[in-house]
């Protein structure tokens, strides 16, 4: 999922940010690409060319063969949540079949009405997906959950539009619902519902081209979504064809109202709770690559206990209700909950102001979130990152150092040039202290550079990755164009999805 600065970047700002990210991706040498063809053949070729200096590390990793992770409660939970989603989305259909049921109409009319029920149920469930419940997000990662929210929203939008279209075609008399002469309030509400739906989808798809800030989009999105579900609920109650008995009316009000309460919970209750656990900015430290590290200490509480690789939503200022809230990965060790550090790259409006944050500033953290974490049972780790995507990996490595973790790890790290390698010096020290090997990949190297150059591609990965790849845990974090190259490659090489941890910059 994508947090750090990039996230915020895409999340927080406008089209400029996407250009910046694209530029960063290009500077790192990435391009959009499909899965590499004939991966194994390429790797065999690359292995033959691999230098001897690589072999010991690969050999060391290949000796670690932990048992494959069994299907545990996490996988069961993941499937369970999906089943619950389908069940809740289909709940109105089941309720409509319970007696008393009204006389049936034409099959197309019943189908259209059913689609309307499902659409409204899915729209209500949208609130649950974005309520940032750690329990729901845990099996998938919050970025995946938000991506699901986005895709499901498009489907619900489509179903909500098809619902009246089929009705109008099957029975033109239904057009009266949109006719002000037949009922001004009803027609006005339904036109408003349609307008809100179009706006909520349109602003989401084209926020950046029209230059809308992330923060205002977030507010607008919440208000419009609330209106859509509220008017949808009133529409169901007023039509009332399938809810002639009080318990059915109560079910609709309870389920849909509960969904809307989730929005209130996320936007009001959670910030209220955050007021009890503020932080103070103690240091704003410049890093390489136009990045800054923000150090925070808890004020009056024990800090935040997180797993290395996770992230939190940061709000700066005296109020947790501030409009600006952005997700960033922790860079510090998980063993130090009272000294939290976030490393942020200058990419957008919010992040470009980080250097002006004064020590002493109040901050609030909501979290931790994310599944970009090293399994205790994993035999080792392979990190493939680009740019500021190194941040969560630094948290994992620093934690490994603090806990005396001796598992082998390899970090393949793409940067624009040697001067912009974030954490360059500390990584060199960590190589001495951990069983870690760092492979720097520079897009623009000086003539005396003897390491890897260009972009992280399949040939480079073949040269440096150990052969028993599925036995290790893999972490990929960087620009989307890099991820689009690396993820298919790893999957084709036999890495299971459960062993592949990905975080994308753009989660908003």
């Amino acid at each position, binding site marked *: 999922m994508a947090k750090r600065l990039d996230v915020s970047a895409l999340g927080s700002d406008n089209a400029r940010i996407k250009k910046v990210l694209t530029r960063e991706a290009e500077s790192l040498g990435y391009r959009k690409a499909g899965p590499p063809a004939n991966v194994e053949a390429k790797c065999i070729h690359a292995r033959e060319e691999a230098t001897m200096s690589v072999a010991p590390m690969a050999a060391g990793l290949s000796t670690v063969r932990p048992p494959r992770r069994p299907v545990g409660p996490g996988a069961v939970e993941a499937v369970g949540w999906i089943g619950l*989603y*389908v069940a809740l989305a289909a709940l109105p259909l089941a309720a409509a079949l319970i007696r008393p049921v009204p006389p049936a109409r034409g*099959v197309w009319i*019943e189908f259209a009405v059913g689609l309307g029920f499902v659409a409204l149920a899915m729209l209500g469930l949208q609130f649950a997906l974005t309520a940032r419940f750690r329990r729901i997000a845990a099996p998938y990662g919050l970025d995946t959950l938000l*991506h*699901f929210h986005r895709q*499901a929203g498009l*489907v619900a939008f489509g179903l909500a539009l098809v619902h009246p279209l089929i009705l109008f075609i099957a029975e033109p008399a239904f057009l009266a619902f949109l006719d002000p002469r037949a009922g001004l309030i009803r027609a006005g509400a339904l036109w408003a519902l349609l307008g809100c739906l179009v706006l909520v989808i349109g602003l989401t798809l084209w926020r950046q081209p029209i230059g809308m800030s992330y923060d205002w989009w977030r507010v607008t999105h919440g208000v419009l979504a609330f209106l859509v579900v509220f008017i949808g609920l009133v529409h169901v109650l007023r039509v009332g064809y399938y809810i002639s008995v009080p318990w059915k009316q109560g079910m609709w009000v309870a389920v849909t109202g509960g969904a809307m309460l989730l929005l209130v919970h996320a936007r009001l209750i959670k910030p209220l709770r955050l007021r009890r656990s503020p932080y103070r900015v103690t240091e704003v430290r410049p890093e390489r690559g136009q990045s800054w590290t923000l150090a925070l200490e808890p004020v009056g509480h024990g800090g935040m206990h997180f797993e290395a690789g996770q992230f939190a939503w940061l709000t700066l200022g005296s109020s947790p209700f501030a409009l600006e809230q952005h997700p960033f990965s922790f860079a510090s060790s998980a063993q130090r909950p009272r000294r939290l550090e976030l490393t942020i790259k200058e990419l957008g409006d919010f992040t470009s102001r980080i250097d002006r944050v004064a020590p002493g500033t109040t901050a609030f953290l909501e979290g931790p979130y994310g599944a970009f974490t090293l399994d205790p049972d994993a035999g080792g780790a392979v990190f493939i990152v680009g740019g500021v995507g190194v941040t969560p990996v630094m948290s994992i490595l620093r934690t490994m150092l603090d806990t005396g973790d001796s598992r082998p790890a390899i970090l393949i790290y793409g940067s624009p040039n040697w001067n912009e390698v974030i954490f360059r010096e500390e990584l060199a020290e960590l190589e001495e202290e951990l069983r870690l090997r760092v492979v720097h990949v520079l897009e623009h190297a000086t003539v005396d550079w003897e390491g890897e150059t260009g972009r992280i591609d399949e040939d480079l990965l073949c040269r440096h990755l150990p052969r028993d790849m599925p036995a290790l845990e893999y972490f990929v974090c960087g620009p989307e164009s890099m991820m689009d190259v690396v993820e298919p490659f790893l999957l084709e090489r036999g890495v299971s999805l459960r062993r592949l941890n*990905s975080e994308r910059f753009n989660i908003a």
Partner: protein
Amino acid sequence: MQHLYTRRLVLAISTVLVLLTALFAWVRTAA
């Protein structure tokens, strides 16, 4: 890649829901 799987999952869930809706309409009118 994980997002690709997410899209496929949403597509699969949507298909199931539309089929359930069709079943609902059939049950209602066939009764």
